[in-house]
Structures are given as C-alpha cells and as structure tokens.
C-alpha cells in the first residue's frame, strides 16, 4: 500500500512537449509510471516518444485514456489554467510541479479544485513517489527504496537528502510527498499525515517543515490528536533572517511568527521526535518503531 499513487495510477502530463515536461515524462516512464497521455494545445494527434498520445486538451485526454492523475509542467502564467482544466476534466489527483505561480491565482484555483472534488498537490513541489510502483513529478527514483516510512516535506532537495539517508540506512519508504513551499497550496501536512495514518503499510512518518506560517504547528496538533504512528520532524530555517518575506504581517494574522523555535516547540509538545540535523532521522525513527 501507499498514499495517493500506486502502480495502477494512470497519468497524463500537461506540457508534455515542453523542456521540463518531456525530460521528466521520460524519467517517469523509465521508473514505471503509467503515463497514458500528454497535453499540448495544437499538438493533438502527435505522440510523445512514439507511444504516448498527445491531446489538445485535458478533456480530450481524459475522454480517450480515462487517466485519473495529471502532472503539470507548464510555465507559471499558464499553471492556474492547467490546474483548473484538469479538475474540470475529471482528473482526481493533480500534481503541479510549476514554480512561480502567482499566489493570487491560487486563491481561485484552490476553491475551484475543491469544488470539483479533486486533490491538488503543489504548486512548486517535486511531486511524489511510491517507490517501486509509480512516481509523479521529479523526485529522483534511484534515491528511494520501497518500505514503511512515509515522508512528507515542504521542500524538494531537503526531502531528497533525508530520503537518501533513510534508503542508505535500509529504511525504505511507503510514499514520499513534497507538498511544496508556496503560501497557498493544495495538499497540506495534515492531509498527508491523515493518509499515512490510514495506510497499513506506513509504520512511521518523517516530516520536514520550514519557517513561516503555521502549517507545522497545525500538523503537530493533528499528530497529537489523531496519530498512533510515530512521527519525526525537522524544521529548516533556524538561522534564516526574520522578516525578509511576508514575515510579520502574516504572523499577525496567523497569531504566530512562524519561527523555527515555535515550530520545534510545537513538535515537542505533540510528542514528535525532533531531528536537529537531516541525518538524525534514521536514529530517531529507529528508536520509535
């Protein structure tokens, strides 16, 4: 088992003929992901790599392939439209890799996708991988191994770092999910934690947060209330300078300054193991399983 994707997941790629889209489509196919189609308006009728049919629209692609999942590699100004198109076409799980999506766009995309009953991961995320079964996005397959650790993270390469260490220590993963670091995104820590809690093949969870906002504090509360499985967490940004981005005003709204210290305190209060260094996950998880 796993969360969100497995070997039966059928995927279409939005922006399949673009630079990033074509590269990662190839990578996903090589990993074993069932890529059933791609979308590039105006290239409908062509194929990708001689075998994957290309369509003019997601609606056309879904009608022809019955895909349930979509992964998006279109430029940032087109990403909101791509997410909404996927949701409107009946895609159930939308993974948006695109970085640089205007945040105000997301204030409309989020309710749209929710109304259509779809799940959105991202934008500005590395996607997810269920090792040995399917990867949707850009997480390098060879650093992962099948196993029982659920991994969820706001960051890309930091996830790779932790997964790499887990794999080297013989601790495989059920699913690794990068939820992305944008202020407004589709799937939260809590969504992933809830899914991991339900998944019988996940025995423990590694969670990597960052400074800013209060998602990690809410996740900690969720862990305390609803999770029976051990969770180990890390917060990046203890040395980051305060107030360089939305900082303070955002903090007034959330009632939290979003500092690393605050988040680590919330983790400790919730009984979450706190990794001080990325390499601490292995020992902390072992101690709890």
């Amino acid at each position, binding site marked *: 088992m796993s969360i969100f994707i497995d070997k039966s997941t059928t995927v279409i790629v939005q922006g399949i003929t673009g630079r*990033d889209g074509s590269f990662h489509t190839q990578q996903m196919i090589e990993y074993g992901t069932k890529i059933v189609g791609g979308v590039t308006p105006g290239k409908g009728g062509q194929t990708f790599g001689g075998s994957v049919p290309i369509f003019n629209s997601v609606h056309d692609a879904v009608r022809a392939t019955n895909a349930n999942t979509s992964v998006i590699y279109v430029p*940032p*100004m087109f990403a909101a439209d791509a997410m909404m198109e996927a949701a409107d076409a009946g895609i159930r799980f939308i993974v948006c890799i695109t*970085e*640089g*999506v*205007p*945040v*105000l766009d*997301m*204030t*409309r995309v*989020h*309710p749209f996708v929710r109304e259509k009953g779809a799940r959105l991961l991202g934008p500005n995320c*590395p996607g997810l991988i269920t090792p040995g079964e399917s990867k949707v996005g*850009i*997480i*390098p397959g060879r*650093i992962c191994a099948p196993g029982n650790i659920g991994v969820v*993270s*706001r*960051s*890309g*390469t*930091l*996830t*790779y*770092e932790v997964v*790499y260490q887990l794999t080297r220590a013989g601790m495989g993963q059920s699913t690794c999910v990068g939820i992305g*670091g944008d*202020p*407004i995104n589709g799937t939260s820590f809590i969504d992933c934690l809830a899914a991991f809690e339900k998944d019988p093949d996940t025995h423990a969870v590694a969670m*990597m947060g*960052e*400074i*800013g*906002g*209060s*998602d990690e504090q809410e996740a900690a509360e969720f862990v305390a209330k609803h999770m029976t499985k051990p969770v180990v967490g*890390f917060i*990046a*940004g*203890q*040395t*980051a*300078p305060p107030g*360089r981005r*939305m900082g*303070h*005003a*955002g*903090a*007034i*709204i*959330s*009632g939290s300054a979003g500092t*690393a210290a605050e988040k680590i305190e919330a983790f400790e209060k919730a009984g979450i193991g706190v990794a001080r*260094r*990325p*390499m601490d996950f292995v020992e902390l998880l072992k101690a709890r399983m």
Partner: protein
Amino acid sequence: MNIHEYQAKDLLRAEGVPIPAGDVATTPEQAEAIAQRLGGMVVVKAQVHAGGRGKAGGVKLAKTPAEARLLAAKILGMQIKGLTVHKVLVTAASDIASEAYVGIILDRATRKPVFMVSRAGGIDIEEVAATTPEKILKLPIDTRFGLQAYQANELGFFLFDDIKKVRAAAKIMTQLYAAFMRNGASLAEINPLVVTPAGDVVALDAKISIDDNELDRHPELEALRDETAEEPSEVEARNAHLTFIKLEGDVGCVVNGAGLAMATMDLVKYYGGEPANFLDIGGSSNPEKVVSALRIITEDPSVKAILFNIFGGITRTDDVANGIVTATKANPLRIPLVIRLTGTNEELAMKILHDNGFTASSDMDEAVKQAVALAHGGKAA
C-alpha cells in the same frame, strides 16, 4: 518586490484613494521646487525599503520651500537600516484628528487576502497585535466574489462611528482592494489612514509589496523596481536568477533548493559556524549560475570559507562541477572551498573536480563540519 511609498501612493491614487498631493525628488533643489508648487507646510520623507524611517530621522516637517530644501539635503544620502536614501517624497502636510490602520495581506492559513483594520493607527501594528489583539479586525476576502459592499461597511464601522466617515472608509477599502488585486500584491497597507479636522478621510502613508511571481504579467510593475534602493549583491544575484540574502557570518553557502539551503545554514550554525548568506541556485543547473554565485559570495570580504551543498535531482551535478572549474580558473579563489555533491551525474562530477584538482565529498554532515573548521582557520579534514 518592495516599491517605494510614492510609487504605492501612485497605484492607490489610480484607484481613487484620497492622498495629499506630493512628488518625488532626488535633489534638494527639486524638493524645494515641489514644496513651492504645493504651497504651505510639507513633509519630506525618505524613500527607502525599510520601516522606522521616522525614528531614523528620515521624515521631517518643513514650513517653507527653503526649509524643505535643507531637510532634503540632510535626508538624501542618509543611511537607514543599511540602505542609502536616494529619493525623498515631498508631500503636503495634513492636520490630523485621528489615525487608523488599514492593511491587506495574502494569508497562508485562510488561503485568502485578509483585511486587517484597527483604530490604533500610525503606530506599529505588530505591537497592537501583540498587546491588544481585540483592537484589530481581520476579515478574509474570497477572491471568487471579491470584496462585497457589506464587508467594506463592516470594516468602516470597525474604524468609525459616524456614518459619513464609515462610508468614506468603506470606499477606500474597496479602492485598496482593487489596487491589491490589480497589481498582484502580497501586501497593501495604509498606515496611518487619518481623519482631518475637517472630517475628511485620507491616506498619509502607503506600502505595497508585489508578489514576484506576478511580474511577468505586469511589466509596468517591474519598471517600478528601484535597484538603487537594494543591497547591490542581492540585485546582482537576482539578475543572475539566484535567490540570495546577505547575512553577517563567514561561511559562504551555495545550495540548490531553499529548504536544503536553510538546512545547510542551520547545520553550519549547529557546528559552531555562522552562515554568510542564503543562496539558492534553483532547480535547473547552469554553469553560469555557479559562476555568478561564486562571484557574489567572494565579493563579501567577511567570507572565510565557501561551502557547496548540491543534491542533484533536476540539477545536474556535472554542470555544477563545470561551473566551479570555470569560475575558479577565471578568478582563482583566495579562500578555502568545500564541495559536497551527490545525485544526478555524481560520478562524472567527481571526475571533473578531481581532474581539476578539487576534492569533494558526498556527505553533507562531513562537508559542513569541514567548512566551519576552515572558516575558523582550521584545516579541511
């Protein structure tokens, strides 16, 4: 992206927000001419991307055009929080009966723009939030529907009792929201929103931050960017498509990905060092970016050692290796360099580095320890 007060006021004026007349000056003579044209008392205000301008002496009242010139001469060139003042806003002075705070911020938790208003204006809103949070009304706006009239009224009633002022404030809320949405802002603030003795409601100060992701859609806003108002190394980094923030430490860091970059800085600190910067070379690797990153970091004389931490996913580590080789050939380093590389094309990268006389590790922990030791005058392990 931050813009200046005078630019923010122009964006608000375009929506109809009542704002006292004013203009921007880069010389004392221009300031005098503007004061002359405005007539009466004026305020001369430093235009820098930093708060606390008043406390720093960057905001002064002038009774005459000549005094405006003198004050402008003092303020221009002044340093406020490390930033040099290159421009002043000269604006008609207003008498003030009361001050309120009005702001909109894009909020992560509600996933919406949220209005914040308070009768406690003029002062630091963070302080109000910390000490008397009940004095702030927070109202999230659903962008599918926009700001409704009843919401604008609710905000107005929170600030004022008199229906005329309520309506005036409600209108300003609508205009501020329009400016926020039209310009892809992440923050838009009027502080203070004042009532004059005559009962008029006007905006005395304004601040707008633009979501960087919107700039491709708004080239007219990109044109508002004032590079003279920023840290030169950060300008250089942005032009090289790097995310860079200068800090006070001595270990220069070059990392791919913001999360790993922060984790790397944290680990530097964990082992007793101080990071000199945050630097994210981003996802798609390009030897040029590495060259720019090294140049920017080595320009800072306080940097004592440089640490590369690259986990290759999309980033090809051989590209990074090539970048290091190219950069150091052109400008030989005078400080130690520690390289950690793993992931995509790792073997090739290691070969490139070895062939050019560099050593590299594949372990993050080890590399960070080394870099800290070297910055402290120790030797690489």
